[in-house]
């Protein structure tokens, strides 16, 4: 403290001023004394300012010490005032203390010696008071800052206790729960956290163990609905050493919705990629099949034609043998028959191959369905054990197709049907070898001819491959019959439909366009 203490001293009695001046000058620590002998002097000096302390007589002409006190207090500068008073006015001095004077000193030679000490004591007291006030102001300001933060936070904040009670709730918390502060405090943790959330126990356990938890929990709104929230909770101790906890909550419903949407979109995308991949794979399989068929076509063209020459010679030879041996033994005639039959079968295979390799452009004309079916049956070899039923209603429209090609298709379907029933025993009596039903009906601009058997049926896994070339389940077949039939039906503007159930027979339907004149 090297700065001198600046004192404004007001006293109208010169001897007293001398007494005080002497008392202060005895001190080594410097006092800078400004003396005022009248009220105007005092007021002018006070207005100039720069004082640390006011020293005032109690009885001044026309101006009392209490008035000095009031004047000083009116400045708001919080300057301490020490009253110096004549002997015997102690009561008044006590009154002055009551009104805010810092202290008083009696103007006796003995007491005045204590003035410097009193001044130091008053100043020290004021310094401490100032410091306390400052600290209080700072504390208040700090509290205000935190209060504002709490009140205006975009996150819901709760001050809680580890076992569940809630002591403070900010407005954002009220907003997301749809409840008032009091309601939330009353409910406690159990009222706002979804007790069915399986993550809750683990979260509390983690907070107990580590003092902190951060993660997702389901919380409950006033209306009972739950919402996902990101919760951050910490255990700490308050100034009294009690365990407290905080919960900072952010409603992540929207984020979850966005995440869910992204997940859905991703799943959709994945599905579309999968679909596209499957389409591409199927397209590729088709290409491979086409390539296979192109090779088959060339092979069929070459080999098929070449085989017709030796086959023709075999048939000629058999013809000749039968011709020149009319009296041959039964056995030899059987063998002639076998050779002839097998040569015809071979020729049929070659025809299928060639038909498949190169479908003749259909020569379409109006075709009687009735006649087509009857001719097909006439040219087909049907085992006598198979019972044939025809359901050909009168008034069927004419089909518009190549009759030879359609007879080929129907013949194929009939042969297949008979073969599907062949396993139904070697029974020779009519009907025990299965039932073959051929029916026809009009379907808008088409006419449908259905060939139904009571045979073994088709396993589901074979349904798709049915019309693929080279697919066969027959022991002696190359798998072209249905492929050729499908090609021929399509070349004639028609199609072939299949219905089948393993063990319950199959129904193949040739659907052909109706002759235009009849539409």
């Amino acid at each position, binding site marked *: 403290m090297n700065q001198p203490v600046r004192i404004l001293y007001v006293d109208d009695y010169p001897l007293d001023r001398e007494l005080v001046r002497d008392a202060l000058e005895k001190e080594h620590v410097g006092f800078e004394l400004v003396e005022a002998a009248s009220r105007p002097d005092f007021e002018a000096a006070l207005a100039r300012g720069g004082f640390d302390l006011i020293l005032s007589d109690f009885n001044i002409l026309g101006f009392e010490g209490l008035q000095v006190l009031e004047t000083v207090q009116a400045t708001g500068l919080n300057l301490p005032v020490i009253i110096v008073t004549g002997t015997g006015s102690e009561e008044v001095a006590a009154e002055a203390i009551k009104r805010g004077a810092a202290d008083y000193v009696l103007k006796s030679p003995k007491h005045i010696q204590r003035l410097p000490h009193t001044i130091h004591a008053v100043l020290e007291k004021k310094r401490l008071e100032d410091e306390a006030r400052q600290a209080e102001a700072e504390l208040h300001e700090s509290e205000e800052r935190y209060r504002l933060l709490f009140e205006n936070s975009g996150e819901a904040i709760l001050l809680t206790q580890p076992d569940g009670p809630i002591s403070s709730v900010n407005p954002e918390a009220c907003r997301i729960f749809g409840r008032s502060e009091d309601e939330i405090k009353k409910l406690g943790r159990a009222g706002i956290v979804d007790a069915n959330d399986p993550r809750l126990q683990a979260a509390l356990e983690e907070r107990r163990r580590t003092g902190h938890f951060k993660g997702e929990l389901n919380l409950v709104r006033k209306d009972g609905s739950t919402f996902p929230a990101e919760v951050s909770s910490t255990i700490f101790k308050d100034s009294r050493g009690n365990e407290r906890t905080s919960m900072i909550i952010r409603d992540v419903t929207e984020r979850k919705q966005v995440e869910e949407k992204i997940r859905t979109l991703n799943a959709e995308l994945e599905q579309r990629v999968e679909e596209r991949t499957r389409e591409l794979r199927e397209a590729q399989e088709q290409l491979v099949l086409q390539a296979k068929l192109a090779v088959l076509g060339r092979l069929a063209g070459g080999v098929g*034609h070449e085989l*017709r*020459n030796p*086959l*023709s*010679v075999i048939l*000629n030879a058999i013809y000749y043998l039968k*011709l*020149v041996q009319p009296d041959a033994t039964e056995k030899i005639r059987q063998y002639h028959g076998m050779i002839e039959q097998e040569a015809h079968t071979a020729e049929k295979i070659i025809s299928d191959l060639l038909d498949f390799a190169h479908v003749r452009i259909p020569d379409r004309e109006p075709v009687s369905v009735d006649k087509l079916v009857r001719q097909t049956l006439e040219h087909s070899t049907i085992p006598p054990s198979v019972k044939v039923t025809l359901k050909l209603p009168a008034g069927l429209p004419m089909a518009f197709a190549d009759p030879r090609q359609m007879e080929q298709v129907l013949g194929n379907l009939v042969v297949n049907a008979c073969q599907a029933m062949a396993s139904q025993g070697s029974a020779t009596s009519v009907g025990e070898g299965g039932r073959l039903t051929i029916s026809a009906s009009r379907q808008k601009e088409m006419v449908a001819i259905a060939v139904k058997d009571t045979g073994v049926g088709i396993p589901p896994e074979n349904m798709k491959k049915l019309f693929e070339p080279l697919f066969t389940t027959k022991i002696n077949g190359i798998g072209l019959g249905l492929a050729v039939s499908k090609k021929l039906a399509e070349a004639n503007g028609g199609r072939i439909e299949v219905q089948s159930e393993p063990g319950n027979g199959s129904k193949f339907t040739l659907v052909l366009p109706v002759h235009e004149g009849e539409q």
Partner: protein
Amino acid sequence: MSGILAILVVDDNPSMAKTLEDILDVKGFEVHAAYSGAEALEILRKERVDILLTDVRMPDMNGVALYREARKTRPNLTTVLMTAYAADDIIQKGIAEGIKTVLNKPLDIDFILSLFSAYKRLILKEPS
């Protein structure tokens, strides 16, 4: 003019020519067999032939070329083609140049026999 129809069978496959020759012979036709176009022309120069039954594809001369050669000396010769290749371009040319009948292999012998019986009535003016 005898009452027998004379047929020349031509095929580069000897078995084909031979079996046809034998069948037609048994069935009462006069038959000559040749295994090439050149051989066939040789026979045509020497023998009476009413019907030329020839394969289409042969190494030295195809059936239609043979028909053309034969017609130079025998303009009215009835010609029947046999083929294992129904879509052959050569056949289309033959048809355009006047060949009436084309048979697909394997041959339907019964059909050939009935066809030739019809020709016999036509060519030999036999009463039916």
